[in-house]
């Protein structure tokens, strides 16, 4: 099972796509993220690991300002995408989110047909000129999400009638259909079976060539398999961040080490 495909490719050659400095997040009174500094590189898969409740999802949601929708959530510090501060007043979170797509922990397909679920993003962003274009995008996205064969005969059935795993893959297809620059995935495979997981992981690897992927995962195997860089969170702190191989084989922080060695994934 330890088939850690540590990638030889020169990670450092990639430029920083997102830089976060001194990020603090508060939910009302409670301090959920404490002073997090991270550089997300382009063309790289970055994995966030850490115990449940440590703030992985929270940080992920900072990166495309999904936290804006939670009234009590306050973000401090600086996060830059391609050098532009995404918390700048002039920044339109809508444009930001088009560039930084997201797949959520709980599958949340729209109560629409499978086709409409996937076509939704391209439609609102005006990515297509014609119905055929759109059909193409829908098909290729579903294919990439390893769902095409299962649903091609019922594209117009409701997305909510799919099984849990199918729903999650549908959400992935929906996210990649808008071809974002950065894709945030919050435990995308937690509802998937091994084969589908493998397909998604393959997809992630493929996507990396075009844009950065950030993935939250509980499976250290998965982190090891798909990511080039890994960040370990603990109790709202970013404990350690570095190349995946190094984190897994030679962690610097004792907390990381105890988490990794107590691993069981």
């Amino acid at each position, binding site marked *: 099972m330890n088939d850690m495909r540590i990638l030889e490719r020169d990670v450092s050659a990639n430029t920083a796509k997102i830089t976060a400095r001194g990020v603090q997040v508060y939910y009302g009174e409670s301090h959920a993220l404490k002073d997090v500094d991270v550089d997300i590189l382009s063309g790289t898969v970055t994995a966030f690991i850490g115990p449940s409740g440590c703030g992985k999802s929270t940080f992920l949601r900072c990166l495309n300002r999904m936290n804006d929708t939670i009234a009590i959530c306050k973000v401090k510090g600086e996060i830059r*995408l*391609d050098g*532009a501060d*995404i918390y*700048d007043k*002039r*920044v*339109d979170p*809508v*444009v*930001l989110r*088009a*560039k930084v797509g997201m797949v959520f922990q709980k599958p949340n397909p729209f109560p629409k047909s499978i086709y409409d679920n996937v076509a939704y993003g391209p439609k*609102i*962003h*005006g*990515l297509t000129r014609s119905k055929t274009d759109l059909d193409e*995008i829908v098909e*290729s996205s579903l294919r990439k999400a390893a769902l095409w064969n299962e649903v091609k005969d019922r594209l117009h059935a409701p997305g909510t009638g799919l099984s849990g795993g199918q729903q999650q893959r549908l959400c992935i297809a929906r996210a990649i259909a808008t*071809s*974002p*620059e950065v894709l945030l995935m919050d435990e995308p495979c937690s509802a998937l079976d091994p084969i589908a997981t493998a397909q998604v992981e393959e997809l992630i690897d493929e996507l990396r060539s*075009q*844009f950065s992927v950030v993935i939250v995962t509980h499976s250290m195997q998965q982190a090891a398999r798909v990511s080039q860089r890994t960040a370990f969170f603990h109790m709202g702190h970013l404990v350690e961040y570095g190349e995946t191989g190094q984190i897994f084989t030679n962690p610097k922080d004792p907390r990381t080490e105890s988490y990794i060695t107590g691993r069981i994934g």
Partner: protein
Amino acid sequence: MTDATQHASLLEADPRTRRRNAAEMRFRLYGLIAVGIGIAALIALLTSVLGNGSSAFRQTFVEIPVLLDEAVLDKSGTRDVEVMKKVTTVGYTKLIQTALMAELAEKGIALGEMTPKDVMGLMSKEAPADLRKQVLEDPSLIGQTITFPAFANGRVDGFFKGRVSMESAKLDSNISPEQLQLAEAMKEAGLISTRFNLGFLTMPDASELRPEAAGLGVAILGSAYMMLIVLVLSLPIGVAASIYLEEFAPKNRWTDLIEVNIANLAAVPSIVFGILGLAIFINFAGMPQSAPLVGGLVLTLMTLPTIIIATRASLKAVPPSIRDAALGVGASKMQAIFHHVLPLAMPGILTGTIIGLAHALGETAPLLLIGMVAFVRDYPSAPPEGFLDPASALPVQVYQWTQRADPAFVERASGAIIVLLVFLLMMNAVAIVLRRRFERRW
């Protein structure tokens, strides 16, 4: 697939983004405008109601000392109430007239060419009746001189409130400019004053000859009784029916039929519920006319569809996972619904109740047929017997007052609407507070 660079730069919006943002702003603006339209309509209606009606709570009173002459009121001198009842209001009118003339003479107010009858025209016809009631309640007053506040005539009241002017009085067969001048002089002499009139809330309705004495006492009681019945019946029955239809009933043609049927009941004109009430409650069940019980039952039937529709919609909106969760730990369906689904549906249920009760509170048409659109002067007694006594209702009072010929009733109708709204707000306040407590997103 298209490449990644198509997306706009973060800081500078491309035309498409600008368009979308403009659409967003527009949409938001539409929303704001919609709320604004609603609020503006409310303000317009409320200002017109308040503007017309607030004066109904103030009334002009004439205060003069009246000698309760034994020779007139109790010739026998026995203070026997039965005997004293023989003296009608006509006798008391004379008494007041004498007192008024005497007082005017004492204050040195010139009468010009006015007859005593013209002078009496400044007083409400309610005054003698009021005095008679006082005396019969307490015969020992006879022989004393008492100062009691009597209503001024509606036109005089209108004069001090600005509704009647010297010009209009010239054309008015019920009042003359001279009388108004006299009223003004009396005001200067401190005999007439305009002040808050609690009687508007407590007194019963009055006939067209004395708008100044008309009050809402009976109507408020009647409405309160009816709303009590409506609330106690329609909320539980409506919720229970909705629970059955939404959660237990098999989904088949029959339940479709019931669903359509209930939606249809909401569209039945309210007067038809009056026809129903007349046929069932009065003619078949033999309940009395003009009784709040019958009114309450009819309004309950009318409110039920509203509550059922609102409740079903909000039951439907509770996510199925909550039901699964409860069933999964071994709750019965009934427990799952009463413990989890119902509390989550509560905001919608309360909204339905608010709207339904508001409708019921303001409705006159069905009451028309069951005898509640009536002139009732005696207060109903306390519940439960009071539910069977004749009573009026607030909207009925509004409806009747808007039909009366004397313009003084216009302000009273608006005043009644204010009371109705306050009544409504008090009723809703409870529901709104409850709704706030149940509201949550998941």
